[in-house]
């Protein structure tokens, strides 16, 4: 135990003096998520808020064929630009981006409208462009509203109740809580948190294994009267310490960033105060030794810094797999999923964000399974260190 603490203290101190480790573990790793996230979310929010305020732009060809429709659109605040397009000219204009959405009112609109036959209009838009698709949707809604208004008038004129044409009245009730709606936006955040955890220990895991071999200090270390388990344990413990630091910095940054993200403007509440951050820390804590043991295990098989970096960047992606899998199949949190590390942390953090009650059993299952995997990896790593191939 004394040897283990000696190794821990030395690895901790040595890496504290290493600029590369510090930048990656305590600056880039933990801050990358919150900054990128803050920028991404506030841009997304500003954009969607701005869009609904902005008037719809429509290019109308053949205004004289349907003056009533044109008046209606103007009265709805649509900004109309008038042009004279053939169908192919309209298609070219939309493709080239000269016009966003073109509405063509053909010659036979008037006669057919007067005869109470379906009067054709042509809406030209590019559905592959998300911006113009939204405009086209808004135009379609307006045209539909105009159509049903006219239909009701026609029925009334003929002495038929317009209600006959509305057999079903659809009412909607949205049960999403403001915090719940935010979760859709914040879904990524849990991965950034787990990423920060791993990044915190990445360089230390490399330095204490492949680095030890590359600088030729490994053999002297292995010829000391110290159990290999103590060496590995001390190294993993030091890696854990850096991961905890990184996690703490990352969560602090998240709390800070969310003060400035205008989530309330969309009717969402970002449930990320100090208490949430503390809950996140507690949820992620059991993931720390697992990540440390995993990275140390993988790095122990590599011969050089460079090789270790190659393999460990792949390890950084491992926690995304269960999370991605869960979101593709939109898995609901169940007890059995709580035994899968990284996914269980993701689900628990999401529940905290949604303000949902959390069962203690789930927390214990998540922590217990992560700790168990960590222990298994520790044993495997120590076993590898006892082999003579460890000398390289």
């Amino acid at each position, binding site marked *: 135990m004394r040897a283990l603490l000696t190794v821990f203290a030395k690895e901790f*101190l040595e890496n504290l*003096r290493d600029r590369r480790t510090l930048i990656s573990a305590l600056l880039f790793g933990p801050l990358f998520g919150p900054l990128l996230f803050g920028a991404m979310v506030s841009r997304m929010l500003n954009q969607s808020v701005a869009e609904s305020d902005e008037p719809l732009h429509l290019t109308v060809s053949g205004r004289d064929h349907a003056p009533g429709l044109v008046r209606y659109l103007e009265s709805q605040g649509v900004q109309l630009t008038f042009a004279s397009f053939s169908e192919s000219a309209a298609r070219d204009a939309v493709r080239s981006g000269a016009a966003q959405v073109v509405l063509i009112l053909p010659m036979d609109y008037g006669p057919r409208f007067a005869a109470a036959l379906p009067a054709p209009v042509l809406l030209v838009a590019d559905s592959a462009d998300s911006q113009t698709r939204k405009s086209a949707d808004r135009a379609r809604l307006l045209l539909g509203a105009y159509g049903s208004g006219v239909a009701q008038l026609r029925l009334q004129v003929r002495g038929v109740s317009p209600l006959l044409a509305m057999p079903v009245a659809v009412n909607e009730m949205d049960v999403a809580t403001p915090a719940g709606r935010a979760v859709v936006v914040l879904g990524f955040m849990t991965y950034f948190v787990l990423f920060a955890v791993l990044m915190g220990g990445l360089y230390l895991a490399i330095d204490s294994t492949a680095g030890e071999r590359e600088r030729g*200090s490994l053999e*002297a270390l292995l*010829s000391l*009267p110290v*159990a290999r388990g103590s060496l590995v344990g001390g190294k993993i413990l030091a890696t854990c310490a850096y991961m905890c630091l990184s996690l703490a910095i990352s969560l602090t940054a998240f709390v800070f960033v969310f003060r400035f993200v205008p989530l309330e403007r969309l009717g969402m509440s970002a449930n990320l105060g100090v208490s949430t951050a503390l809950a996140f820390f507690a949820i992620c804590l059991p993931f720390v030794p697992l990540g440390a043991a995993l990275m140390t295990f993988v790095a122990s098989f590599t011969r050089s810094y460079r090789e270790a970096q190659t393999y460990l960047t792949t390890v950084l992606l491992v926690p995304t797999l269960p999370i991605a899998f869960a979101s593709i199949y939109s898995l609901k949190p169940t007890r059995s999923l709580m035994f899968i590390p990284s996914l269980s942390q993701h689900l628990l953090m999401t529940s905290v964000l949604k303000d949902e009650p959390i069962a203690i059993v789930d927390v214990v299952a998540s922590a217990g399974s992560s700790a168990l995997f960590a222990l298994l990896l520790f044993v495997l790593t120590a076993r590898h260190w006892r082999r003579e191939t460890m000398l390289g």
Partner: protein
Amino acid sequence: MIEANSLCKRFGNVDAVSDVSFTARDGEITGLLGPNGAGKSTCLRMLYGVLTPDSGSARIDGIDIRGETSAARAHLGVLPHAAGLYNNLTARENIDYFGALQGIRREESHRRAAKLARALGMETFIDRRVKGFSQGQRIKVALARALVHDPGNLILDEPTNGLDVMAIRSLREMLHALKTLGRCILFSSHVMQEVAALCDRIIIIGGGRVLADGTPQAIREASGSQTLEEAFLNVLGNSEGVS
């Protein structure tokens, strides 16, 4: 005292070491001499227990290295072929780290480090970070690190590699001083002059076997040679596969 007893080691199809036995005594400097690839390092690695022999055994002060590894290693200081240091630690911290892992008390470790710094002439740089040290300075730190627990036995694998004349000279003086203190010193080299200048006893290894074992004089006489260099070449010439 370091004893090798019929050590054998194979790597794949290659017999790296076959049936090597010898004894390095206290108060003597024993040189393991042989060309590159003769099996010197493999042999030493089995002695300090980072390689397991396929058969045979090794003892440090009578303690079996496989049976009681930790107890045996407490009697042993090792300067491996790759004696890398921790660049972000000072020389003193490097030494203290090994002292702590050898299980000696902190004050004792400090006392030993100061003493070794004096003996090895490291006082001017002992509190500097190791990054940027010359090869000579590094070998001194590595040697002090191996000696921090005041072991009765010292194993050095090609310690003079990459050293300049000054550094080799101070290493020699240090080994002499340890010898007069009654320590058992075993070191390997492929440089004949090195061994001739330092050793009380020479073991010549070639192709994984002991080809000669004795005092420099005895080896010269046995091979009927005037100089040690001639004896070395004669002895090696008799073994197959060595050119």
